[in-house]
């Protein structure tokens, strides 16, 4: 009995260690194996999977190796050599195998620190702009985050088969079009880094909801942004992205009420905000801004920092937010930025200043059909005492609201407005 119990304990301890290594180890092993197999992504993943399966079987009995990543990488490499040897009758594999044999066999890795970290190469390849955005996202989740096809399919509400095909096609494109497995040279970085940042931020936002099968996406996005920021310490936008995610994430616990409805920033319970995340996010942002190359992610993070560090909604530094939105509008112009600028202007200088700005935006027609344009307008009109027009705008917003939760929020506002004495 005692023996059984201790082996169970060893098993669960090894399981925990393996789970801990999997988070970062998966992508490192896959990246190393992609390089080792000369670009065979499927084989690379299969070997990584196999290495973890072996670890789950052997570590509870044999103990956890002192250099676990080296152990896993060696196991994956041996598996790859095995597979290529067995497949060597096929002409293409033979060439691959011959190439392997021509070079001296790579060493058995003895220490974790000697394993090259090629996760950046993997990131830039997964997010290569020659792949469409869906493909970039799917490849990133599979090869970098190590999510299974089924998990990715669930998060994006498609069938496992559809997601499997998407990943398959993406890998085929990488192989057939010869998308290079490398960090782009310096002159290409300004073109390529935004694509990586964009995919990670999109993943974060996909997971920034109350749906449990999606929240994993946010934590993976933060983890990958951390890896990216660590591997590219001289890229302030990579730091800015990490800061932005942390500052948003700090407010996660207050964003939905018990019924799953979204809670507006003004009404959120600030006492549950994660102060460690706020502190970490602001510290990273400050370091990034000191480089004097403020890009869109740093500016958005600065706005998020204004909100996250305000003790109350009323104490928010709105004039600074107005300035930041103006700066954001210059580096990354978009109608949504203009809308948020108008909201901030309404808070900083009052509704009478903001309304003409908002009306000019509405007249441009670029946000036709966007419910928050009308909701914002309703709020400004209400504060100016123009209740009838405000109601009209609220009804327009209601008609366009995309989710039930948002409709409920707007209906509450409409009911509040109709109450006498308000």
């Amino acid at each position: 009995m005692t023996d059984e119990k201790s082996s169970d304990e060893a098993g669960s301890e090894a399981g925990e260690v393996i789970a801990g290594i999997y988070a970062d180890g998966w992508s490192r092993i896959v990246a190393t194996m992609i390089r080792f197999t000369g670009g065979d992504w499927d084989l690379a993943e299969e070997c990584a999977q196999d290495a973890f399966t072996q670890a789950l079987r052997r570590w509870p009995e044999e103990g956890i190796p002192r250099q676990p990543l080296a152990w896993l990488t060696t196991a994956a490499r041996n598996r790859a050599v095995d597979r290529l040897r067995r497949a060597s009758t096929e002409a293409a594999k033979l060439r691959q195998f011959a190439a392997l044999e021509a070079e001296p066999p790579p060493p058995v890795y003895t220490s974790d620190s000697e394993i090259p970290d090629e996760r950046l190469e993997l990131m830039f390849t997964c997010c290569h702009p020659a792949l469409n955005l869906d493909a970039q996202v799917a490849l990133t989740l599979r090869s970098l985050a190590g999510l299974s096809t089924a998990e990715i399919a669930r998060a994006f509400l498609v069938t496992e088969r559809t997601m499997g095909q998407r990943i398959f096609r993406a890998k085929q494109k990488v192989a057939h079009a010869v998308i290079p497995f490398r960090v782009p040279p310096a002159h290409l970085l300004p073109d390529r880094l935004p694509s990586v940042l964009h995919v990670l931020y999109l993943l974060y936002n996909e997971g920034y909801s109350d749906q449990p099968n999606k929240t994993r996406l946010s934590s993976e996005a933060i983890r990958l942004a951390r890896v990216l920021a660590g591997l590219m310490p001289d890229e302030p936008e990579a730091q800015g992205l990490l800061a932005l995610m942390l500052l948003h994430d700090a407010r996660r616990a207050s964003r939905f009420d018990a019924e799953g409805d979204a809670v507006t920033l003004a009404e959120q319970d600030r006492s549950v905000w994660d102060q460690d995340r706020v502190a970490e996010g602001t510290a990273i942002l400050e370091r990034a801004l000191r480089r004097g190359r403020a890009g869109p992610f740093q500016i958005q993070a600065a706005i998020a920092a204004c909100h996250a560090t305000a003790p109350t909604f009323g104490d928010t530094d709105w004039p600074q937010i107005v300035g930041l939105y103006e700066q954001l509008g210059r580096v990354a112009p978009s109608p949504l930025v203009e809308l948020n600028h108008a909201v901030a202007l309404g808070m900083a200088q009052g509704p009478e200043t903001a309304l003409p700005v908002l009306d000019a935006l509405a007249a441009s027609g670029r946000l036709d059909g966007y419910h928050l344009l009308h909701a914002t307008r309703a709020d400004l009109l209400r504060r100016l005492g123009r209740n009838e027009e405000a109601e009209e705008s609220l009804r327009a917003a209601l008609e366009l609201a995309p989710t039930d939760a948002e409709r409920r929020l707007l209906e509450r506002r409409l009911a509040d407005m109709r109450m006498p004495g308000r």
Partner: protein
Amino acid sequence: MKYLMLVCVDPDLTQRDIPGEPDVEDWVRENDAKGVRLMGDRVRPGSDATTVRVRDGEVLLTDGPYAETKDLIAGFDVLECADLDEAVRVAAGHPMAWHGVIELRPFWVDDNDS
């Protein structure tokens, strides 16, 4: 790696002179010298095209291009590049990328995984 570079007209783009647009003669000279451009030429418009099909053993000819869009393909080049990034760089240096569209197609490499 060989890429077929299809040089296409963008019917929606009417601007004639684009500042900074590269010169096609320079492009050909440079890429021929580097061994990146293996061959290439302009082709006659779609009105001079003949489409060939064999159906039930019979050769059927159609006067005109296969693609519905008229005069899409203006020319082609065959590139030899290390990878897609290099091919993109070469294609982006061609004037037709500035006021038309260039499609890059990797050559089919005989392998067993397709």
